[in-house]
């Protein structure tokens, strides 16, 4: 690994690989799909250098299965995909949730539904990350914006996966996947906790089934069927209900510890721009331009998108007079903000784009100015 004060010049997809390796990832299973493909290609290059294993499977379902299998055999494991591939992975992602198998899923979002816009950015998988697999469940999804954030959040995704014994999503979009820029590799302190799985003894309480990997003499049974705390299938309603509550609550109850947001110039703000991922960058330019015109506006970005920071957003909306929500979909974040906010008089000004292009700062600025006029 390079020195912590090294500056590097990497595209987002390469950042993910290097961060994953730093987090201790030793297995990648994937299937090529734009705009995530470079993650697989770079993993194919890097993993065998460190004694890890890369495999290109026959489809995304298989890739997800292999990732779960490798994780059960003790390897910190990663897969990466985009839109259609994420749809295919969903059943096995649900298995990983049910069977409590730590792993990380990167989704470089592109336009959908279906094949949609393979080479263009979107943020329209964010609800699929939350609800894509069937059955009641909770999920952790991280939505960084800047290269350093992407690096740090990829590492944190591995930590959260181990700690909560669950798949964790890192959601980016085509712009972040392919934008190459210079940044300083975060120091060990900035990266947060990195440790081998064997040292995650505190994760024991988060595991409903018997904790551990295979080949440790424990003869675990691991199943996607509803199961007892011993890991064996059951249809006992009380036990099943308790197990589902465990799966959901281990994440819901940890929301305050998992929550991470970025705030910018919000202290005196009348208007909050609430956004995530790459539109956060355009929002910054727009906010600076609006501030130059005397508008008091700031930015709130959930970096932990799921579980959603409901209370924090509620408090924020309480403090401001209007909200602008730019996003590369038709209002998935706006819906979440609306659900979190308790004050109907606070107007939400959406800025939506589904045409496969970035949201320009000018559009966000116009929405800020409109919001200002409405105050």
């Amino acid at each position, binding site marked *: 690994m390079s020195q912590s004060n090294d500056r590097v010049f990497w595209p987002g997809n390469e950042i993910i690989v290097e961060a994953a390796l730093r987090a201790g990832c030793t297995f990648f299973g994937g299937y090529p799909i734009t705009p995530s493909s470079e993650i697989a290609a770079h993993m194919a290059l890097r993993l065998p250098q460190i004694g890890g294993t890369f495999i290109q499977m026959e489809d995304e379902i298989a890739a*997800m299965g292999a990732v779960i*299998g490798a994780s059960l055999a003790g*390897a910190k494991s990663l897969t990466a995909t985009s839109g259609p591939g994420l749809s295919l992975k969903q059943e*096995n992602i649900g298995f990983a949730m049910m069977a409590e198998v730590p792993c990380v899923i990167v989704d470089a979002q592109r336009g959908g539904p279906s094949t949609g816009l393979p080479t263009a950015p979107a943020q329209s998988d964010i609800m699929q990350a939350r609800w894509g697999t069937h059955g009641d469940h909770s999920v952790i999804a991280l939505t960084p914006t800047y290269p350093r954030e992407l690096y740090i959040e990829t590492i944190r995704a591995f930590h959260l996966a181990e700690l909560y014994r669950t798949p964790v999503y890192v959601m980016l979009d085509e712009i972040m996947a392919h934008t190459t820029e210079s940044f300083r590799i975060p120091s060990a302190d900035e990266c947060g906790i990195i440790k081998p799985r064997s040292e995650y003894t505190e994760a024991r309480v988060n595991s409903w089934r018997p904790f551990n990997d295979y*080949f440790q003499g424990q003869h675990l*049974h691991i199943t996607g069927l509803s199961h007892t705390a011993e890991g064996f299938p059951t249809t006992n309603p009380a036990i099943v209900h308790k197990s589902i509550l465990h799966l959901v609550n281990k994440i819901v109850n940890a929301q305050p510890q998992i929550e991470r947001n970025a705030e910018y110039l919000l202290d005196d703000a009348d208007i909050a721009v609430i956004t995530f991922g790459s539109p956060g960058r355009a929002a910054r330019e727009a906010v600076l331009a609006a501030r130059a015109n005397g508008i008091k506006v700031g930015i709130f970005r959930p970096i932990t998108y799921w579980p959603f920071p409901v209370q924090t957003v509620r408090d924020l909306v309480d403090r401001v007079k209007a909200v602008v929500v730019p996003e590369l979909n038709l209002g998935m974040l706006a819906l979440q903000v609306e659900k979190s906010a308790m004050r109907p008089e606070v107007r939400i000004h959406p800025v939506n784009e589904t045409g496969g292009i970035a949201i320009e700062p000018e559009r966000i600025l116009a929405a800020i100015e409109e919001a200002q006029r409405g105050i």
Partner: protein
Amino acid sequence: MGFDYSPWLRPEMMPNIWCPGCGVGIIVKAFIRAMSACGWNRDDTAFVSGIGCTSRAPGYVNMNTLHTTHGRALTFATGIKLAAPDKNVAVISGDGDAAAIGGNHLIHTCRRNIDITLVIVNNGIYGMTGGQYSPTSLPETRAATSPYGNLDRAFDLCELSKAAGATYVARGHVGNAIFLERLIKGGLEHKGFAVIEVMANCHTQYGRRNKHPDPAELIQFIGSRAVSVSQWSKLAPEERGDKFPVGVLHKDTTVPEYTETYKVVQARARERLKAES
């Protein structure tokens, strides 16, 4: 002295879900005896399945067991084997699991020649979901979804596996457990991907609809159609009818095994890294 199954089973999981007379128990026992005969240590073995009646087997066997999603067992098994190449990985699947929803994974696992042994319990029907036709149901089979007779042609799973690149392919049947144990043992010992198809009875879902409701009779009927590989080659096509060859149908020890080959990739990667730095 008979074989002592007790360390290999999970008595707390009994009774099992299978219908009385189901042949899958015979097959699981043959599997266990074969593992034992190969000296497989339960701590170092993963036993993986998909979804279906057959796929419930790992739950009853006392080792590292994994009951995955329908059709995907081989993908999970591949991940385990890649992450732990020195461990033993075995898979058990129904015919629908292995060859319908899991057909793509089956052919690609064959192609990779990874050191995993797959036993396919071919009862020619979807047992668990109530007797719908499967890709191995013979033409004219009456099934829940073919009340007028099945119009599909059946896969020959052994020919399919061989063509896709499996390096050990064998077929046995539920009526000859000793022979079956030997075939599975051959697969476990083989360094590469091994497929053992077991012609099996589902008297409940298949038999009742197709004039074989009695398990013992159906097992005998299946056995009566089995022909040894050597005899099979002497049969004229019109003599073959609904018969099938049993024994080791294909074995190739010249093809490199996948995890061994990956070690070469790792060595190359390290060399290139050294040269560049």
